[in-house]
């Protein structure tokens, strides 16, 4: 995967370049660019997670057209969980700090935030692989598989929710 921060740096236009030499504005410009990179990264992660969701929707589609209702409800719940994580990923905190905040979020923290989000891609890969298996799982084993994916999503959610705590180093 490319480092989106580098791409954003490379693609700075004239206006941004002028902003970078204005005293007091430079830091603001740099931080804003990392936030934008992180935002693009999270949207990509959410799109990747959608691949897994599509696989599970495919399983639901098969069941629906066969009118096999045994696992439908559980699959529906799992898809709702996917939607919830999707929302959390896309609309997560950007890492802004207020005026004279208790804990400042500087360039270093924002870089950590980006790297933290980048590391989440591995967990998503795992979820995608597990979701792929769903298509070939027998009906009687489906519940276990659903539960496995649910647990992975749960782990993802738990870790992702702690991102600001980790990067600001305020975990107790």
């Amino acid at each position: 995967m490319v480092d989106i921060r580098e791409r954003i740096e490379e693609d700075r236009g004239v206006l941004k370049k002028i902003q970078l030499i204005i005293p007091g504005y430079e830091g603001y410009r740099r931080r804003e660019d990392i936030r934008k990179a992180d935002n693009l990264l999270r949207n990509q992660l959410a799109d990747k997670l959608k691949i897994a969701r599509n696989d599970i929707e495919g399983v639901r589609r098969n069941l629906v057209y066969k009118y096999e209702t045994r696992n439908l409800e559980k699959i529906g719940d799992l898809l709702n969980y996917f939607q919830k994580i999707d929302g959390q990923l896309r609309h997560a905190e950007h890492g802004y700090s207020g005026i004279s905040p208790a804990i400042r979020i500087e360039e270093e923290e924002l870089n950590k935030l980006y790297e933290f989000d980048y590391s989440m891609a591995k967990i998503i890969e795992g979820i995608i692989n597990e979701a792929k298996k769903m298509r070939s799982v027998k009906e009687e084993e489906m519940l276990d598989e659903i539960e496995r994916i649910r647990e992975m999503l749960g782990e993802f959610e738990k870790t992702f929710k702690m991102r600001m705590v980790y990067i600001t180093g305020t975990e107790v």
Partner: protein
Amino acid sequence: MLFGGSKRTDATAGGKEGIIGAMTIAWDDAYKRNFIMWKVPRNIRLNDNIVVREDEIAVFYRDGKVLAYLDKPDRYALTSQNAPILGGLIRALSGVKQQAEVYYIQKKVFDGKFGSKQPYQFKDKEFGIVNLRVFGEFRYRVNEPVNFINQFVGTLNYQTSQEVEERIKEQMVLLVYDAIGHLKEKGMGVTELAPNLTNIEQIVLEKSKDHFGMYGIEINKVSGLYINLPEEVQKAVDTRASMQVLGTNYMQYQAGQAMREAAQNPSGTAGAGVGIGAGIGAGYAMIGSMAQAMQPSQTQQPSPQPQGKACIKCGVIIPADAKFCSSCGARQEKIECPNCKAPLPADAKFCSSCGTALGSKKCSNCGVDMPASAKFCPNCGKSV
């Protein structure tokens, strides 16, 4: 102003246009509510800026083609040849004015409700034809703006969420009916619909993709689905559910119900204690029949029927033709409360159910007979 002409100014533009007539356009929140889409009411000019917020998508058309599909929140500068000098010159020379338009669409989810206008006739194996009505809620959003604009706005000229919902509602009812129909073919009876409501929701949700995808609409939740059964069928379904919970057959269940009713209808003024006694008395006889029902070998032999009946007041078993109870002396005749219609012993002075005074009394002023519960004489009007 929402549908103003080209002179429309915007809060984000600070009420000013640039030197070449360009301005910053944003969808004002005040006009957003209830509108699922908005067409910027003027032709886009060179370097017009549009602001796309987190919950919006903007589609930029130039000369009828979709050039940009802007779904990331940001400020975008749009290119067009429409400018006061250049655009005017081109128009003067060629007679052609470039058409550049922007459509805004809300990305957020909207909620709607649906309900059947006509009942669905479900042919059940046990209950015959049962009329069903369905109700539910759905959440939808625009996921393919181009399809949405072409199918809804272009073809049907729908712009408000209400208009869009109207279109979705009828289709949702049909999808539920379709799901019920298929489940019936798979052997599902009317009594099994209630425990399968979430499954039906999932079926409808999945099938909605095929129906609404072409309109650029995604139904992303169906909830609160309710299938309304006729009262008598609902009663039978409830009875069956209770029987299953209790693990009894119909006879045993009925006996239990009778016991409960007897206990809930105490007779006379003796109050709850007597009522319970009556219930136990009546129930005692029924326990015997329940026990027999549970022992199939005994049911083959004719069992002796209990002789007599339970006293309506104290519940003691007395001969079937007795007019008075040999234990408490209560007259074995029932009257009906004029107020709540509860059955009462003939000599009751007050209704044990609603407390209405029973019998009649005479007016102290004019001597006319009047109901015991009357507060004023119907003849002379005197307070009694």
